[in-house]
């Protein structure tokens, strides 16, 4: 239903929402938002609205999936039926199954899975509203949910896409840029370890453009990483305050 705009970048180099090519969308993060989960986080990344929760380490069901020498990480990325233009059936789509896998593989390098053998950790991600870049925002939130649950981690994981719109390599594509643009490169990193844990690409890029996009995405991830740490700190302060009040 949304019509194709004439130009995604104007003469001044600004994008439809007024951003420069290397600018992130507004991001709001809150940690510890759900009372029943062991850890949780909520992110608004542009118009994306996403909840992530972590349960565990806990006993696994079914038991035969348990591993003797490590924790098993499971992940479900799921979109609410009302999160997108056309109502989505609540049954998991092939896209959701693939994304659940790549998101899990983006988070697992950060987790000390060997600390809790024979246990499981479940990560549940619910996209309440989608606007391009949900997998990256999901990773950003899920990493915080894991940290909030007290799962021992090497580093947080921060995620952000870069891509190509018209002839320009730009940061953090929103929905319309993703659909009309010519390439999208979602990236997740553990900033302190210089480690890329998610990398996908759609579209066509030369080697040079690809290098530029990866570097730009990494810069974006680093900015998001700073916000993640702020959000964790805010959560920590809130918990501390609560405890002091209780005492």
């Amino acid at each position, binding site marked *: *239903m949304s019509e194709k705009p004439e130009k995604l970048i104007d003469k001044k180099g600004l994008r439809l929402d007024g951003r420069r090519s290397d600018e992130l969308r507004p991001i709001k993060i809150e940690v510890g938002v*759900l*009372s*029943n*989960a062991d850890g*949780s986080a909520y992110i608004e990344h542009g*118009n994306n*609205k996403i*909840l*992530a*929760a972590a*349960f565990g380490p*806990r006993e696994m069901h079914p038991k035969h999936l348990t591993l003797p020498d490590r924790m098993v990480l499971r992940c*479900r990325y*799921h979109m*609410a*039926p*009302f*999160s*997108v*233009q*056309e*109502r989505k059936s*609540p*049954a998991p789509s092939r896209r959701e199954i693939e994304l659940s896998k790549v998101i899990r593989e983006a988070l697992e390098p950060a987790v000390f899975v060997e600390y809790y053998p024979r246990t499981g950790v*479940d990560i*549940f*991600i*619910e996209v*309440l*509203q*989608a*606007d391009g870049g949900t997998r990256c925002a999901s990773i950003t939130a899920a990493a915080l949910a894991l940290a909030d649950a007290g799962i021992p981690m090497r580093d947080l994981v921060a995620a952000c896409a870069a891509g190509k719109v018209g002839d320009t390599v730009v940061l953090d594509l929103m929905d319309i840029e993703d659909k009309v643009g010519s390439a999208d490169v979602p990236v997740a990193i553990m900033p302190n370890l210089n480690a890329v844990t998610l990398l996908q690409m759609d579209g066509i890029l030369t080697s040079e453009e690809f290098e530029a996009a990866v570097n730009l995405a990494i810069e974006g991830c680093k900015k998001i990483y700073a916000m993640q740490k702020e959000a964790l700190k805010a959560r920590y302060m809130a918990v501390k305050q609560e405890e002091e009040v209780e005492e």
Partner: protein
Amino acid sequence: MSSLITRVRLKQIANLIEKGKRLDGRGLGDYREIKIQQGIIEKAEGSARVLLGKTEVLVGVKIETGEPFPDTPNEGVLTVNAELVPLASPSFEAGPPDENSIELARVVDRGIRESKALDSEKLVIVPGKRVFVVFVDIYVLNHDGNLIDASALAAVAALRNTKMPNYEIENDEVKIKQGYTQLPMRAYPITVTLGKINGKLIVDPWLEEEEAIDSRISLAINDEGNICAIQKGGVGYFTPQQILEAARIAKEKAAELRKKVDW
């Protein structure tokens, strides 16, 4: 399920209630604090988030066009679905809807349908051929008890907040036009759930109380104070007197909530 420690706790809850008190300080007939936010999912045609204490439910409404049911060619279609998403509780599992989520969806559906909340004849585009289909998706985000009342409230709040696309018919095809009109509604039912513990009735049981009660009864009350849907649940029973008492309380509480909620 119920470990030894929980049994002590359940006993404590029951004992308090026999004295007319509750663990969280409420009186037997008190609701927890209610917060309603509407329109928070901009991409949906309607939405509302309800906080009932720590219980949190998000309802999104999507509107599409489709065929009417053969036996009601002059009515739009209402579809209510509930997802007990696993991040809301360790007791919820990913997968197809189980009997609990199906019951939740159907009880909310009945409250809306039987009170004739939607003016479904105004949802017809071409009689017998094309109508608006209203999808009400209940998304439970945090489960702290009494999902029925929170979901019913969120569903009605989301419907009140819903906009239908304008359209025109051109060469027998429906064309969506610019602009929206409000979804046509005629009634705003409110559902009140009571639990029974040791013969006492309590309103709006929270999670731990739900484990202590032996049965619950949910009554949807319309704007005139009449009953438009009932569902008894749980493996216990009510005496006929308790049922009439529950109906009386529900009517009273619904009127009270109706004044309080600002939707």
